[in-house]
């Protein structure tokens, strides 16, 4: 594990108190944009202004609890990384459908079911990993990023009722976004660290200057007390068997989203990151499932790791887990202040738009990186390409989807859900006919490098193996075959975590030295070159073994962790 350049505070480091508080507040400011989802849901459920404020306040409390559970580092629960919880847009589509059918009690009930399902999957996450390969997690995260950007643009324009107002909104969003970008790209230290918070502040200033800042719209008619426990008047649970399928699918989409976000958080803390730490993922998923149950039990909506927050920590280089405590305390306190909920409901839309748009860039890029880190053959390309198109469908072909049976509406209404369902199903379908063990016969006395490269590259693509691992394996095979006498067979076998190559040849066993031969030894004879070959194999493979079997045949085994 090595420290990536640009990382100011790693996950285990605690920043100075001032930085800790300011960075925690910045994360809380960004996470408060996720409260827009309960606001949308509450409005769809026709809540009165009073009840809407309660709903937002309770959602703040559930963010506090979820963040604590998700980020904590322990043997049993928590990802151990700065992956704060946000109200998730994943759950918005099905939750709105549930709200239309049975009001918020049905949303809460089905959210509990989703949380229980995630909690149940957490211990066996490693075993079902073939269902959720990293490129699909990458796809989900890229689609989340894309929708965040679209949402950002919509919020930047949402107040537009005439060309004059639109230009004001656009100007506010542009000023806010430009501030964030300039501070993030061309400054260092505090300015870069707090680019989003400062951008939001500039956006507020611009909104005030344009005269569109109106704190009265979210206020109940009888005014607001300074402190108040959120009313639990909304608290009832209902269940509907017909909604189990869409919410189960959302649970899987949530797992993919969490997998991608926690993996991203792991990666930005480790320049040598090559594969997700599954213990951290499982504990994170357990935390998420429990957070979902708690959230729905106290009367809020579905929670997931908030991609924007991980994106912000990547952008600013502040990834300390300690921030989670600040975030949790901030949201726990804010949940007792009705004015805070009212303020959230009145945050200028263009400022929200700018924050979404800024964070979306980092989320989207992270998803694309996760997709392209794998070799993509036709099967993977079809899974990714078709599912990406399916994710776009609800936004582009609403008329077409309106004719689908009502049962499917919770799935068809959300691009994210539809894309995830498509990716998971197509991934299963495309596994048909993919052999996990392949063998290539070699012509005696002739090493055809192009054929070996093609064989391993194509097979790696079918398996969805990482490019860097396949490149190392190609080197390993070519290196072995050029120093042995008569290579006869190359066998490759793969699962998600291991790539094993066996090369059989007739001749004497290859020496695999622990010590690098000196330049003088290498130059002195071809034996020196063979020693270097063995040493390079030992260094480039995660395990190497060479043994003579019967009939004068030798087998070199190269193992690569994947």
């Amino acid at each position, binding site marked *: 594990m090595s420290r990536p350049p640009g990382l100011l505070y790693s996950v285990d480091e605690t920043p100075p108190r001032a930085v800790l508080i300011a960075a925690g507040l910045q994360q809380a400011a960004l996470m408060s944009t996720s409260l827009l989802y309960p606001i949308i849901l509450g409005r769809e459920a026709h809540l009165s202004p009073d009840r809407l404020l309660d709903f937002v306040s309770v959602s703040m409390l559930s963010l506090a609890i979820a963040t604590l559970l998700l980020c904590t580092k322990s043997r049993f629960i928590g990802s151990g990384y700065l992956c704060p919880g946000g109200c998730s847009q994943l759950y918005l589509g099905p939750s709105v459908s549930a709200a239309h059918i049975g009001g918020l009690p049905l949303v809460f009930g089905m959210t509990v079911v989703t949380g229980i399902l995630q909690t149940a999957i957490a211990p066996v996450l490693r075993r079902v990993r073939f269902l959720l390969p990293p490129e699909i997690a990458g796809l989900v995260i890229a689609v989340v990023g894309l929708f965040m950007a679209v949402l950002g643009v919509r919020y930047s324009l949402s107040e537009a009722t005439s060309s004059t107002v639109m230009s004001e909104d656009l100007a506010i969003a542009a000023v806010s976004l430009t501030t964030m970008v300039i501070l993030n790209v061309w400054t260092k230290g505090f300015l870069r660290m707090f680019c989003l918070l400062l951008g939001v502040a500039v956006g507020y200033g611009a909104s005030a200057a344009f005269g569109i800042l109106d704190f009265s719209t979210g206020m109940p008619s009888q005014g607001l007390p300074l402190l108040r426990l959120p009313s639990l008047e909304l608290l009832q649970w209902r269940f509907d068997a017909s909604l189990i399928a869409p919410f189960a699918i959302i649970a899987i989409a949530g797992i993919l989203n969490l997998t991608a976000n926690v993996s991203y958080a792991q990666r930005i803390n480790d320049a040598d990151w090559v594969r997700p730490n599954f213990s951290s993922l499982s504990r994170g998923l357990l935390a998420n499932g429990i957070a979902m149950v708690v959230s729905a039990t106290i009367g809020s909506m579905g929670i997931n790791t908030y991609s924007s927050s991980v994106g912000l920590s990547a952008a600013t280089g502040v990834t300390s887990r300690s921030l989670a405590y600040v975030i949790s305390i901030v949201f726990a306190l804010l949940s007792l202040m009705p004015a805070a909920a009212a303020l959230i409901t009145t945050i200028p839309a263009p400022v929200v738009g700018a924050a979404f748009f800024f964070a979306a860039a980092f989320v989207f890029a992270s998803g694309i990186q996760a997709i392209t880190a794998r070799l993509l053959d036709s099967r993977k390309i079809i899974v990714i390409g078709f599912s990406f198109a399916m994710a776009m469908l609800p936004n582009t072909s609403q008329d077409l989807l309106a004719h689908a049976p009502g049962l499917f509406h919770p799935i068809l209404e959300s691009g994210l859900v539809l894309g995830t369902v498509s990716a998971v199903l197509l991934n299963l379908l495309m596994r048909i006919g993919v052999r996990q063990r392949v063998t290539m016969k070699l012509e005696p006395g002739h090493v055809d*490098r192009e054929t070996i490269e093609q064989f391993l590259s194509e097979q790696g693509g079918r398996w969805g193996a990482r490019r860097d691992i396949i490149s190392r394996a190609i080197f390993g095979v070519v*290196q072995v075959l050029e120093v042995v006498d008569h290579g006869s067979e190359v066998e490759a076998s793969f699962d998600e975590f291991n790539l094993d190559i066996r090369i059989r040849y007739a001749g004497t066993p290859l020496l695999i030295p622990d010590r690098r031969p000196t330049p003088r030894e290498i130059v002195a004879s071809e034996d020196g070159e063979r020693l270097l070959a063995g040493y390079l194999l030992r260094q480039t493979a995660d395990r190497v073994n060479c043994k003579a079997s019967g009939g004068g045949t030798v087998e070199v085994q190269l193992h690569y962790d994947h």
Partner: protein
Amino acid sequence: MNKTALRMEDSHAGSVCILSIGGRIDSANAADLLDRLNGLFSSGEKTILLDFKEVLYLTSAAFRVLLVVTDEAERNEARVVLCGLAGQARELFEMGGLLEAFTVHGSREDALGRL
């Protein structure tokens, strides 16, 4: 032409002869590299900069040729310098512990600035 096949192209920057290499270097073509370098030394070149920017990977046979040529150059008061090592090629130099056996600079511009 196969994109992994060995490609070599020489040019000059002042008194420095730059040999840009691409593709893979292994036992099948290491002798071609050796011949090309010997040819350049025979024509009077005293400083040869090997630009590895486009090299995919190199095997023990290639390392041996590079070591032989470097030794040969030192004996003839000439020198071989490497630059542009990246990706898997750089990893192999590092993993093989062979970076210190050669004079290695970062980019071509960096190398030319120091030569």
